[in-house]
């Protein structure tokens, strides 16, 4: 099961997947989407999306509102079915038994207000296929972990919003899913719970759970995700490792902090983007030129304190891609 994660760009040799042309495939992904199409009435919500979610990764499913994220998630969670294309979970064609291996926390999430906390978790756990004993054991474990054992007999409606959010998270993971899908998990969460859930996400990842994290909050993606796919207007626009994506979109910008005088002739080697005192941002034609530039500065007696490459933020890339609406 422990296949190394090859570079995102290595195409998979599996014959069934060979027809994918422009896509970057992963070896033995936990989830694989193959040319998914979904239309509602006459609206094309998803228009030929393919991507792989590497096993054990935290995977960002990004896109502006109405891009088709929720439609995709509903297909993955078997809530709806794709018009065409195929979904593979852990190598198997998605079927109605698979929800038991998936934990899904929708963006808009609720609970049965009249139920007791324990009963509620038990009900959802049983519906995910856990036996009575296993359900009890797991619920105990999580209540213990969140130090809320005494909640068992509380009614959901008696809980504060923050408490309900904890409960929702437990309900999502109680059946030990292989794949966890979190749709805007931090929306509406207070900082304490946000932190708690972040910790748990990382903890679950260490346990081998693969996590799809859907959001349009880019700073969270940079913080949490290793891989991303960007969906816009029902198509995937961009995908890969966060690091690679950023590199792909970098503009060879460097920020230099120095003392002394800048030598003449710098303008011929690089374009000065910004300059404030002894802090300058420059752009070079190609990546390799950064070395020679640094050398040039040093040779002319400039005292360099810091020399940093400026990578674009995901937010910038996201906005640019969505605006252009073309494949990067």
């Amino acid at each position, binding site marked *: 099961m422990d296949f190394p994660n090859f570079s995102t760009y290595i195409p998979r040799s599996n014959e069934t997947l060979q027809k994918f042309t422009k896509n970057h495939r992963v070896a033995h992904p936990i989830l694989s989407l193959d040319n998914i199409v979904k239309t509602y*009435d006459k609206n094309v919500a998803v228009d030929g999306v393919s991507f792989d979610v590497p096993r054990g990764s935290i995977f960002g499913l990004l896109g502006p509102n109405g891009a088709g994220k929720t439609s995709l998630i509903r297909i993955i969670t078997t809530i709806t079915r794709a018009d065409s294309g195929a979904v593979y979970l852990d190598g198997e064609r998605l079927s109605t038994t698979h929800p038991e291996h998936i934990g899904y926390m929708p963006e*808009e999430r609720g609970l049965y207000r009249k139920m007791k906390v324990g009963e509620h978790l038990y009900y959802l756990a049983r519906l995910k296929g856990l036996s009575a004993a296993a359900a009890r054991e797991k619920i105990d474990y999580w209540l213990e972990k969140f130090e809320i054992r005494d909640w068992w007999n509380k009614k959901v409606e008696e809980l504060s919003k923050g408490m309900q959010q904890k409960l929702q998270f437990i309900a999502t993971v109680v059946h030990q899913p292989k794949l966890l899908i979190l749709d805007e998990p931090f929306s509406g969460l207070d900082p304490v719970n946000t932190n708690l859930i972040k910790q748990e996400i990382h903890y679950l990842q260490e346990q081998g759970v693969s996590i799809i994290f859907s959001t349009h909050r880019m700073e969270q993606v940079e913080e949490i995700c290793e891989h991303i796919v960007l969906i816009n207007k029902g198509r995937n626009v961009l995908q890969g490792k966060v690091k690679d994506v950023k590199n792909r979109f970098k503009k060879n910008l460097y920020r230099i902090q120095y003392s002394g005088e800048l030598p003449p002739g710098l303008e011929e080697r690089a374009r000065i983007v910004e300059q404030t005192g002894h802090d300058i941002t420059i752009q070079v034609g190609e990546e390799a030129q950064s070395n020679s530039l640094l050398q040039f500065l040093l040779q002319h007696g400039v005292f360099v304190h810091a020399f940093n490459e400026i990578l674009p933020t995901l937010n910038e890339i996201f906005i640019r891609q969505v605006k252009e609406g073309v494949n990067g």
Partner: protein
Amino acid sequence: MDKLWLIIKREYLTRVKRRSFIIATLLTPMAFAIFFVVVGLIFQYESDDSRRIAIIDEGDVLKHSIRDEKNLYFRFVDVELSVLRENFADFDYDGILVLPQVNDLLARNYTVYYYSDKQPTLDIESFIREHVSERLREYKIEALQLDPRQLEALDTRVELDPEPIDEAGQNASKLTGAIAAGIGGLMGIIMYIVVFIYGMMVMRSVMEEKSNRIVEVMISSVRPFQLMLGKIVGVGAVGLTQVAIWAVLIPIVVFVSTLAFGFDSETQMEMAQRSAAADFNPEDTEALIALGLEEFRSLNWWMILPLFVFYFLGGYFLYSSLFAAVGSAMGDDLGEGQSLTIPITIPVVIAFYIMMVTIEAPNSSLAVWSSIFPLFSPIVMPARLAFSPPLWEILASVAVLAAASVFFVWLSGRIYRVGILMYGKKITLKELGKWMFYKD
């Protein structure tokens, strides 16, 4: 299947354990009991202020005898009216009744005078009127020298006893129609209420799940159809439980409360008699009740009760699934979706009116066809069962309803699965229709 069972169990248990359910289930029979007791007490209530009435019988109609009644005490006096009136306060009478001479034996009107400082109460008035009328009749018979037996013979009551043409047919008595109509009407009304109460319960519950956003979590674990069916079955079981408890509890509570409050059925019957026609003698009433009971027992309950449960379930499944479909399409706002429930409530109401007509003419073609048409049959057919409709009609009705229930549950499931995920859009009926044809 396992999951469906889990859903049914939850839907059932959370409702049955709810305080409001327990209260409603227990309180309804109590309400019946209280109603019966109060009605009984009111009827039984006898005026507790006793009144003394002086009678000046100028025409000697009463021949110096009148029985005292309840709290009314009569005394014949031979004093002039004017004297009595002057000293009214001293005599301690509440009123003076004056019966004048009967001048014309053939007159159909006769006026008596009642002097009092108070208005005569209704019971005084009716007692005097009835009693005087009765005695005046005797007086006239005697004065006109008529034969009372001949007179009575003029009063003939005509009864109708239906008889079957072929010998094997059930011999119905004159009461069959009335009893069947009573039972039929009751069953029809119960069905009508059941469809509304529990159908609405399903609808509200679907709306709640949707507006509370638990539904997306649920259907990432189970199929929408399972969730809907589980809810319908669960709520249906709640309905059966409640109706079963009522069926046992209401008669017990009514019986116990009538006993506890000391008026048995006999006094109630007396009351009934009193209000009924005057020429209804007690032996007749008893015979009638005996006949009624026999008639009631002779109904084919082994046929009626199971069929009643069938129509309960069939009608419930059919309508509650439609309510579920409509509930799924509604947003958080009940008022907005109200128009969507109208197409469901209209057939129920029409069926109710047809049922009323059916009781009077259980074999009319309207009755027959309505009891086969599945949107009407759950309410119309139970009302006809007591009239022993032909077997083929029952079979046709059962078959059509069973098929229709399955079909409507399936159809509603198609709407439901789309509706529960649709937010923030005002839904029209046309749209609901389109959803049926959506792919999964």
